[in-house]
């Protein structure tokens, strides 16, 4: 057992320093960007982000970058192999070519849920198998956001996307449950996995602080409320993020040394519809008539999850 004492208790304890400057091309109220902002505060400046095609590709548009650290745009499917190449090259230079350890970089992949769950999953699995020393940041907006909000394997059952729209024949929209990326990654026993939410900044920061002290694959899934794709007013991002946690839809947890711990379990879980009803992508579950059957299915899925832990 490795003892790790959380450095932060309150939001006031967090680093005042910013590692991403504001004014990027991303949407106002982007929950994922808030998550990355908090993460980068913790990780500091000696970081290289290998980015997958997605919304966050627009963070660095020539000739601008909002980052203090380095950036490499890759492809939708291969941010992790790029991280492998950089990691290997830095290790070679430190071992054989006299590169000082001060020149080392923390190598990080930043990818959306589509890249993470779909096109890039094979390459990530291979890196987990190789025990690549890196941090993976998946901002999970539950669809292919950059291309206009199409279905990904992370799109939850009952949500409407451009490519799984709700129709008379397919009233639910997406008909499969969200793929459990946490469990998929966990099967390969990486050093660390955590889910985080921008609405829980202290929890998020403590987890990145902890990950920073570790080696090997350190994997993050950041719940990323997306006003544009989910259909709500950008100023409600915090509320949506909070409801995702309070309804138990998005469990905040970590996996470390073989154990899963829920670091922010909802005290009394709210009904899922409080989360669903505020978003356009779930509107068809309430209008023109309520689809209690589908809402019940979603609730049941959440209940089943928590029954294992509560």
């Amino acid at each position, binding site marked *: 057992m490795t003892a790790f004492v959380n450095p932060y208790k309150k939001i006031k304890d967090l680093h005042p320093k910013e590692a991403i400057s504001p004014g990027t091309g991303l949407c106002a109220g982007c929950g994922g960007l808030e998550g990355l902002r908090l993460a980068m505060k913790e990780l500091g400046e000696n970081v290289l982000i290998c980015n997958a095609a997605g919304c966050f590709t627009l963070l660095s548009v*020539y000739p*601008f970058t909002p*980052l203090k650290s380095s950036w*490499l*745009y890759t492809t939708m499917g*291969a941010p992790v192999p790029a991280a492998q*190449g950089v990691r*290997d*090259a830095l290790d070679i230079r430190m071992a054989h070519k006299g590169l000082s350890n001060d020149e080392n970089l923390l190598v990080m992949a930043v990818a959306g849920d589509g890249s993470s769950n779909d096109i890039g999953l094979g390459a990530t699995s291979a890196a987990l198998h190789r025990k690549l020393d890196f941090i993976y940041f998946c901002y999970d907006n539950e669809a292919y956001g950059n291309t206009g909000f199409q279905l990904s394997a992370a799109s939850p059952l009952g949500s409407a996307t451009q490519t799984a729209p709700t129709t008379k024949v397919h009233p639910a929209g997406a008909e499969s449950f969200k793929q459990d990326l946490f469990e998929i990654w966990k099967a390969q026993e990486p050093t660390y996995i955590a889910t985080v939410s921008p609405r829980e900044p202290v929890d998020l920061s403590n987890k990145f602080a902890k990950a920073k002290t570790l080696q090997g694959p350190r994997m993050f899934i950041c719940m990323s409320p997306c006003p544009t794709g989910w259909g709500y007013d950008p100023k409600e991002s915090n509320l949506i993020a909070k409801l995702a946690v309070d309804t138990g839809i998005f469990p905040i947890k970590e996996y470390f040394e073989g154990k899963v711990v829920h670091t922010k379990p909802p005290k009394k879980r709210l009904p899922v519809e409080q989360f669903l009803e505020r978003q356009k992508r779930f509107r068809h579950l309430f209008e023109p008539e309520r689809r209690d059957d589908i809402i019940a299915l979603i609730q049941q899925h959440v209940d089943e999850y928590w029954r294992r832990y509560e």
Partner: protein
Amino acid sequence: MTTDERIMLTGNKAAAWGARMAQVEYVPAFPITPQTEIVETLAKWFAEGTMKGKYTNMDSEHSMFMAAGAGAATGVRVFTASSSQGILHGMESLYTLTGWRVPLVIVNVSRALATPITLEPDHNDVMSTRDCGLIQLHAETCQEVFDFILLGYHIAENPNVCLPVLVNMDGFYLSFTREPVLIPSQEAIANFLTAFKPAQPVFQASQPMARASAVFGGATYSYFKMQHNLAAYHAEKVFNESAQKFSEQFGRTYEPAEKFHMDDAEFVFVMSNSFATKGKAAVLQLRRQGIKAGLLKLRLFRPFPSAFIAEALSGHKNVAIIDQNLSPGMGGITYPEIVASLYSHPNRPKRILSVIGGLGGKDIRESDFMSIINHFKDPESPSPLYLFDDVDMASFQKIQNIANPKEEPSSS
């Protein structure tokens, strides 16, 4: 190696030796026939400590090329190898890393593309990389494979190029053929190829940078592409300078294309890679019969040395461009490039025939070269000429009859 040595090597082993003597530091790899012997050899040398650095088993060519490019962008000398389906699988990464403008050497061991799936060679795989902006060198012999890897790093790492170099050899015909290869001593090589000094900033803490950022607007995109294009064009000059240095150091001289009995040739075959050896044998045979044949072997294929090739071919009456590749609905891929190079030349050949042969490892026989000559004699004969004769048809029909015994073999 401390002294020059001549050893028997397959094309694949020659490639591995090239990487070793170039003191490559990083090899991300993925196996594919007929290339596998290269990466197996390198894996062993890294594992036993003969080579210093790292060999990483990747999960696909898409990942492999990405790791290779990222390694080069982080300041190590990188080598990797692939073939056929592997090139196609990695194509997105190939375009990505050429745009990153990173130097490395890639060996492609040519193998025909599915469908149908086969192991045997032709050049559709390497031709698929034609437009992605890397430098291409085509090798005929094991010695050329070895030499072109050294030459490749010299060109790739030139500050005015900064692009990957792909060295191509034929699967089976060269990859598994043993030939004597002269391996110069490490000291001699050091006089030609110094340790990797990246021309561009590389990733490390003291040099934060954003690379390969997105662009908006055609003008910005076009600017970067035109830069890339200029670098690729410029690589021809760099090829000649590097080849000159190489020749001074090692005594072997490489021009952008090789002229074989070209001076008085009335019939010229344009070929590349190992089948050029068959072409050269045919030239000698034809000359014994009093036919003035010659051969131009393509070596530097990207950038395309248009002026050199036009110069070499003009003044010759009949030129047959033998493509071991096929763009269905258009024909051979190198043919239009050579025709375009010659178009404005006052003294261009009277007839330029497109020939397609050697697909999926099909041999090009001496009789095929004779049929090309005969084809020229008839002014009405169509182009392209497909090297697929009655013997080939009969051999296919024999197989077809096994697949579908009820059907009568077609009579054509």
